[in-house]
């Protein structure tokens, strides 16, 4: 048994040195990672970082320039057709037909996925129930709210019960209540052993994933559980400052040496600093001298957004000298 076959027993997605070039542009640069079966893997990165290109290679619609990988045990270079039968894919554009009814959309996808006629009815009822569309089966899809469309699109994408599903920004533009219902569905699927590969710009959703990968400029710059990312990978510290007139205090704090960033957050401020102890003393001291009543200045666990922004900006700083040399 070779290593790829052995891995496929426990892993749903494996890629090694995956690369995709478009002319001289490297969209995905030697990316390696694994996603275990039943895991929810969050794939994060700014727009244009290489997220969609990676997904397109994983679902067998774009051939890699270099590197190897398997999805659901099939080779992404040579078994693209098999992969398409064993995965579900849902993109932010939902790919539903607005002028068809709910029921007709499901029938359409049943046809595409060649669902066994004996199972067709049961699968359709399953989708309708999952999406909460019992009263809307004969409604035109166009009139459904964003949350309903989203759940219907997910249902259509998994009619054929694939073991691995890819969700590309599935909750973009959907309101918080619907987003939460959607995540309940994802957990339910994952509980049944389905592997979920999801991209999102919502950092609160990234927290719900089992593991995360952060891609930037085509490279995987961080990977791990949300906990690992927050506690181990961020170089700076984050302080919470609670004081009077935080908006005015912001401007004062920014002047202190070693302060990287100040942002309003709820009733106070989040301050990104090089080193906690010195910054706590400097901030407390300055605010007191300027007459602000201070309730709290202390270190906190950074949010995933803090980590994300910090890692990307660190990478930008590291690359700047290189770019200057190139010019």
């Amino acid at each position: 048994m070779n290593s790829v076959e052995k891995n496929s027993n426990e892993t749903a997605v494996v890629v090694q040195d995956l690369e995709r070039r478009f002319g001289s542009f490297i969209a995905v640069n030697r990316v390696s990672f694994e996603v275990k079966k039943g895991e929810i893997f969050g794939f994060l990165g700014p727009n244009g970082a290489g997220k969609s290109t990676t997904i397109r290679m994983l679902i067998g619609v774009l051939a890699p320039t270099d590197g190897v990988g398997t999805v659901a045990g099939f080779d992404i270079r040579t078994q693209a057709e098999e992969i398409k039968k064993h995965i579900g894919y849902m993109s932010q554009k939902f790919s539903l037909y607005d002028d068809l009814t709910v029921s007709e959309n499901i029938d359409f996808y049943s046809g595409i996925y060649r669902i066994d006629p004996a199972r067709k009815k049961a699968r359709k009822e399953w989708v309708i129930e999952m999406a909460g569309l019992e009263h809307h089966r004969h409604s035109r899809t166009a009139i459904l709210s964003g949350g309903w469309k989203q759940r219907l699109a997910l249902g259509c994408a998994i009619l054929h019960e694939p073991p691995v599903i890819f969700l590309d920004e599935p909750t973009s533009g959907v309101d918080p209540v619907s987003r939460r219902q959607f995540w309940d569905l994802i957990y339910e699927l994952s509980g049944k052993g389905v592997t979920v590969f999801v991209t999102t710009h919502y950092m609160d959703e990234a927290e719900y994933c089992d593991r995360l990968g952060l891609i930037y400029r085509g490279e995987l710059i961080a990977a791990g559980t949300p906990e690992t990312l927050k506690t181990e990978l961020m170089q700076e510290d984050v302080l919470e400052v609670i004081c009077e007139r935080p908006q005015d205090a912001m401007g004062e704090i920014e002047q202190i040496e070693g302060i990287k960033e100040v942002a309003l957050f709820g009733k106070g401020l989040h301050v990104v600093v090089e080193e906690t102890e010195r910054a706590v003393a400097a901030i407390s001291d300055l605010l007191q001298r300027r007459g602000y009543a201070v309730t709290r200045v202390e270190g906190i666990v950074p949010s995933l957004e803090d980590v994300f922004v910090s890692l990307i900006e660190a990478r930008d700083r590291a690359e700047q000298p290189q770019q200057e040399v190139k010019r």
Partner: protein
Amino acid sequence: MSAIRTSKLKKTFDEVVAVDDLTITVTEGEIFGLVGPDGAGKTTTMRLLTAIMEPTSGDAWVAGFHVVKEAEAIKERIGYMSQKFGLYPDLSVMENINFYADIYGVPRKGRSKRIDELLAFSNLTPFKQRLAGNLSGGMKQKLGLACALIHTPKVLFLDEPTNGVDPVSRRDFWRILYQLLREKVTIFVSTAYLDEAERCNRLGLIYKGQILALGTPDEVKQIMPGAILEIRVADSRKAYQLLKKELREESVGLFGERIHIVTRDPQKVESEAAKILQDAGIDASAPRPIEPSLEDVFVSVLAEQERSEQAR
């Protein structure tokens, strides 16, 4: 002085009440967030306040002017960025800004200084000649903002400005907003991102055209029905399924390695949950009450509303 004041502002479309007796005040120099699900009335409220649409009844004043009787005076004093950013994709960055400068009647004299400032401020100086259609989402958003600011407005309206924009660009965008606040611009922003709502001085939670809660983020959190207990557990899926089955009366949610239970009787549920997990031999932290996030509040309050509507 208040920058925005509304009194029983109402807008109906045929049978549908899009905005229902809205009464709010936004203080000068403050950032106010209007938060609500799709179709709650956020965009309609924006259009009433920016004097694009007339109310069915009620009054509103923006920068001291009445939205119906003095609509023209308002338009000169406000900036408005819609969800689509209002850009012309086939015009360059400079052409878009100049176009808005003409619309707003910004005098030629002093205009180029203002444009340079705005370009620097939004980090778009190197992209002056690029077509707006070829900008990234984050850059389009910043250009949309620059265009809305060309006439140095006193009050800025932003309708879901960061939808679909990545976290780094969102952070950049907020940095610009902070700078505007320091220049005493009043900002009225609608958003579906609850973490952004946390950054507003005050916010209103809107649902079916009505304000359900109004105040600082802390004050809004007070309306949470019940309390939240958090449990940290390595095998969270198993624990979640079990708790969901056993605690049928409560709302149990899974968030990665954390489980949240929303309950009206935290003391009773705290010991029940601990016992359920212990009996099943699951190693977990003791359930402890935590401060709700705005999203928790939002979801609980809306769920409650829907339940009471269904009961009727």
